[in-house]
């Protein structure tokens, strides 16, 4: 389901979940595909949620699952949070767990500074 929008060469990898709603229905697939990216050596990940209007608790669980898999090998950040997605991140404090950026350009710039 996910689309690698940029990178995928072991540097900075920008990922679009390519869904309007990240929920129990597709969160496991999302997580599995993110794990595959990590296993291929992508350790600097930007999840671009610009096109996502709704996430549920399963989506949060999946994102944390990706973070667990990554461990201390690299970094995962999110960008493009809006409306109910932003609120979900705030209420569950995921905005403290995942660095958040306005858009993928800002996220990629921040990650490359830390390379």
């Amino acid at each position, binding site marked *: 389901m996910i689309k690698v929008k940029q990178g995928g060469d072991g540097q900075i990898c920008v990922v679009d979940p390519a869904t309007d709603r990240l929920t*129990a229905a597709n969160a496991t697939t999302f997580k599995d595909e993110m794990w595959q990216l990590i296993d291929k050596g992508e350790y600097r990940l930007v999840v671009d949620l610009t096109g996502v*209007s709704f996430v549920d608790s*399963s989506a949060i669980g999946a994102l944390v699952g990706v973070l667990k898999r990554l461990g201390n090998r690299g970094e995962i950040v999110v960008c493009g949070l809006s409306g109910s997605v932003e609120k979900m991140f705030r*209420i569950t*404090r995921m905005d403290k767990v995942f660095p958040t950026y306005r858009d993928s350009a800002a996220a990629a710039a921040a990650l490359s500074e830390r390379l």
Partner: protein
Amino acid sequence: MSAFDHALLQSGIKVVVVDDDRLQRAYISAILRKLGYEPHEADNGDTALRLMTDLNVQILICDLDMPGLDGIELTRRIRAKQTGFYIHILMVTGRNQRPERERALEAGVDDFMAKPLDTVSLTARIRSVRRLIEHEEILAERERNLVAAKERIESDLRAAADAQRRMLPDPLVQIGRCRFHSALLASNFLAGDMFGYFELAPGFLGLYAIDVAGHGVHASLMSVALGHMLTAELFRQRALDAQGRPDPAALVRFLNRHFWRSDGEEYFTMFCAVLDQGADTLHFCQAGYPSGFMLGPGGACHPVGRGGYPVALMPDVDFETDRIEFPSDHLLVLVSDGALEAEDAAGRPFDDHGVQAFLTATDRKASEIPVQMRNALLQWRGGAQLEDDLSIVVCERMRAA
């Protein structure tokens, strides 16, 4: 006679033979009887149709040319009927009736036999039909098994849902000078929501609401485990400090340690609180659960809580106890995110604003809030089922007697 034909003798499958030619009928019937079938003869289409229906017949051998209802029209009528099984239609035609055969195929005839009819071709075709019928029976048996298995699973799920609901407090519970009103609506059979309240010490009440991530069996098992675990005793041990001062975050920290697993992804959100009635103070820890609402007389309504980490999602996060004033004659309303996320037909969520607008729309009676809010949400959904479990808990502080 082969073992296959013997088997047929046992079952005596009915066949309707329709032909206006008496000799032809008798000839076909004789062959069928010899093969172990039970022929029923009709000399016209209407009689054949009636016999098919009355005897639940699965095989029809019909002549193409008959006065009145001909073979093609008879086939159309049979195909137009709703039967629980497939009817196999074999048609007897003249050798040079090619265009008629085309029309007959379109009407729903399965196979043809040419006149003059011989034993070999009738036997071959009837055996082919028999194989199909046997195959249908295997499929039907498989379907019956699936239906039975599905019913068994659903009945187990209903039993589990009942067991879980029995763990929830009654819709109205009074503890001291507090009344609790509640409603639960599960998205499918099983909910991941759990809540409870109890007296901890004179003047002190413990209360919590939990929403396990995900739905169904998986979420329900964890919510039942939590329902058993979260007792007044555990609150006394973990949510009050050594001096007896409320600290619900300490209980949440304990649960986080207890339920977090490095290899698991199960977690839950929680609103965990201790109400000190003497001091009119609510001590609470909001662990990823939606903010509550404090509703005062005259429609004043304020959100309660600024968020917090969910429980068992991450190992090394901290949880805080917050305090707010909770005077008597105020209400605390807790609503699981099933309400906030409920979308209408246009995809708009009910949201905090929806809950707040609902609570302040009229002077709500505490006892009516759970049911009225559930109805408002169902209306918002336009009759569509909720996608997540929904629980509504109202804590009503009564005026001093």
